[in-house]
């Protein structure tokens, strides 16, 4: 497990909001030289604290107006292996994430579709036909927000955040 100091946390927080900022710009913001900021960012990446970058896509602009979360319970009767189910569900392009969970459901799926009738097609042709799929519960996503998480930069003088929201959060 990687130990972070205050500056690491600020860098992590800033990069989680905008990963395109250069080491020079981040260094100026947090009082580091460009090489020092670069070394810290590299350490965050090498240690696995940052596991990659994600493009924030506007799904609606691409014609995907509907996101649905499905809770799937496997039918216990058949001896369907988890691997078979996981392989089949991961191969569906409309399924964005598959999480194996413990609780009311066995799997949680995030599914995108162009509209509700497109979603019905995905549900009927792809999800319901999965090997071993039993109970399925659908919840249509209305809104979604990602929060910075417990990085603990709350004491920092509010930096200019692109969304203008995080400073008001505490």
């Amino acid at each position, binding site marked *: *497990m*990687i130990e*972070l100091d205050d500056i690491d946390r600020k860098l*992590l927080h800033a*990069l*989680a909001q*905008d*990963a*395109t900022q250069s080491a020079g710009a981040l260094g100026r913001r947090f009082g580091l030289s460009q090489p020092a900021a670069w070394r810290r960012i590299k350490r965050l990446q090498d240690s*696995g*604290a*940052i*596991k*990659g*970058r*994600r*493009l*924030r*896509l*506007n*799904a609606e*602009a*691409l*014609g995907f107006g509907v996101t649905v*979360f499905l809770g799937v319970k496997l039918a216990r009767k058949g001896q369907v292996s988890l691997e078979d189910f996981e392989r089949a*569900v*991961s191969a569906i*392009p409309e*399924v*964005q*994430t*598959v*999480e*194996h*969970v*413990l*609780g*009311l*459901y066995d799997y*949680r799926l995030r599914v*995108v579709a162009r509209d509700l009738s497109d979603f019905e097609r995905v549900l009927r042709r792809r999800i319901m036909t999965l090997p071993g799929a039993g109970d399925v*519960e*659908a*919840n*249509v*996503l*209305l*809104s*979604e*927000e*990602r*929060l*910075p*998480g*417990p*990085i603990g930069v*709350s004491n920092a003088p509010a930096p200019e955040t*692109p969304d203008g929201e995080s400073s008001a*959060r*505490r």
Partner: protein
Amino acid sequence: MEASGIIQGQEAVIDWAALGYAVEVSLRVTLDKTQARAFDEFTAQARKVPEVIEIQTFLGRVDVRLSVIARDMSHYQQIYRDRILTLPHIADIEALMHIARVKRDEALPV
């Protein structure tokens, strides 16, 4: 694509497990909808809990889902009791504990 608003930005993905947060729980919350401001007040308070990393609202059996991370089960227990159960207008909560992420592909099937 950035200019047309299809790409809204790039963000670093934090691996909370690498930072010592081993537990991730999905809390599916049903709200007391007789309260007109239940959604707004609940989400406003949930935002103040640092361990809440995602808030989603739904149309369906579940009203709101929170992603909560914790260092271990006793830490989770503490967050759950002190910060989650004290959130306003909760009618019911169900927890799903994450075991594994089988697929994480936010690409769109274009």
